[in-house]
């Protein structure tokens, strides 16, 4: 309730940044825009080609899962929210975005940017919401190694470019460069989104756990547009198996 009174202050503090961005946009030269446009078109081409393959893979995945008698989760809906340039507390990695419960945002929703997981909504206020980043020392996210499916938990370090993985033994199968994706085990984050890339793996022969650090893939300190995700909690019912599969089951 009180947040309605303080939102104008947050809004005002954000104005200079917004103005600067607006000026930057309007004074950008034609050549620059052309170049950017070209670049984006190429990117778009590559992405849509990848997506073509992705949809085929998704269909295949659903088919295989129905063969295995397991279910597949529906896709996710997203809402684009813009960051307000305010700093609430220097000791926490919490940011404010301009979409709140009026847009249906609720607590515990995962937040992404174009490159990976950013964090989750901790407080949904009417006009804005607060998002805790995965690098906050009080935040932990269940992850798995993309290469071999090894599960663990990544804990924020308090630095924007570092995550700690304190619960893996010295002989864990993990090497620098491994991609960590969400495992979906906590029930908060949808499964399969990139979280971080393993940066260093230091064995500690005298201690039970290795010291592992990873770098978040999301641009935590530069991206201004974030995606708030509604992951559908209900699963797709099993596909009606095609006729030949029925034969197999009978």
């Amino acid at each position, binding site marked *: 309730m009180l947040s309605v009174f303080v939102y104008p202050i947050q809004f005002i503090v954000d104005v200079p940044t917004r103005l600067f961005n607006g000026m930057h946009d309007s004074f950008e030269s034609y050549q620059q825009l052309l170049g950017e446009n070209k670049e984006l078109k190429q990117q778009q081409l590559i992405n849509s080609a990848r997506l073509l393959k992705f949809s085929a893979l998704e269909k295949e995945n659903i088919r295989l899962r129905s063969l295995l008698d397991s279910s597949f989760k529906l896709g996710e809906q997203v809402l684009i929210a813009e960051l307000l340039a*305010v700093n609430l507390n220097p000791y926490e990695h919490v940011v404010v975005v301009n979409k709140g419960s009026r847009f249906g945002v609720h607590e515990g929703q995962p937040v992404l940017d174009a490159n990976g997981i950013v964090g989750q909504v901790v407080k949904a206020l009417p006009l804005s919401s607060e998002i805790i980043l995965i690098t906050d020392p009080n935040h932990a996210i269940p992850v798995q190694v993309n290469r071999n499916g090894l599960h663990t938990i990544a804990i924020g370090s308090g630095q924007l470019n570092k995550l700690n993985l304190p619960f893996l033994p010295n002989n864990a199968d993990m090497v620098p460069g491994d991609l960590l994706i969400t495992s979906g085990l906590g029930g908060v984050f949808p499964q399969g989104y990139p979280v971080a890339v393993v940066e260093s793996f230091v064995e500690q022969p005298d201690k039970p756990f290795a010291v592992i650090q990873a770098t978040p893939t999301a641009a935590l300190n530069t991206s201004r547009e974030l995606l708030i995700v509604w992951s559908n909690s209900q699963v797709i019912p099993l596909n009606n198996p095609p006729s030949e599969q029925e034969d197999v089951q009978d």
Partner: protein
Amino acid sequence: MSKIKLPLLVTYWLSIIIAMALNIIPWAPPFLMAAPDWVLLTLIYWAIAAPETASVGKAWMVGLLVDVLTGQLLGQYALAYAVSVFLGVKQHKRIRHYPIIQQSLAVCIILLLARVLIFWTENINHQTMPINFWLSVLTGALVWPVVSLTLRKTRGL
């Protein structure tokens, strides 16, 4: 209670709103940790310079607003601000006549006490604080002359 002049009250609330905005301005990382608590400095100024405008109740309300503004435990800043303003009002006759450097020292002690209270509530909330959490006490004392002179000039207008 004596009647407070309306312009003074307007200046009081305006200065607090500006201080709130200053509190959440995103600084570059090296300065981020050391940013002083502008709202508390403003409250202390009013407590010392015009104790009739500043009351513990108002400080509590401002503290609640800051709690909501920064998404902290509700009542954390309210407690710290109320206690600080109480001390400021109690000692205003003494502190007001100090030379500006000595005033800074007195303010430094009040800021330290407020920080201790925040540290305490954060600890109850199971948060650990880095060592530079205390830095804002020093920067607060350093910028006190600026805050004090600016507000005095503004009041004089």
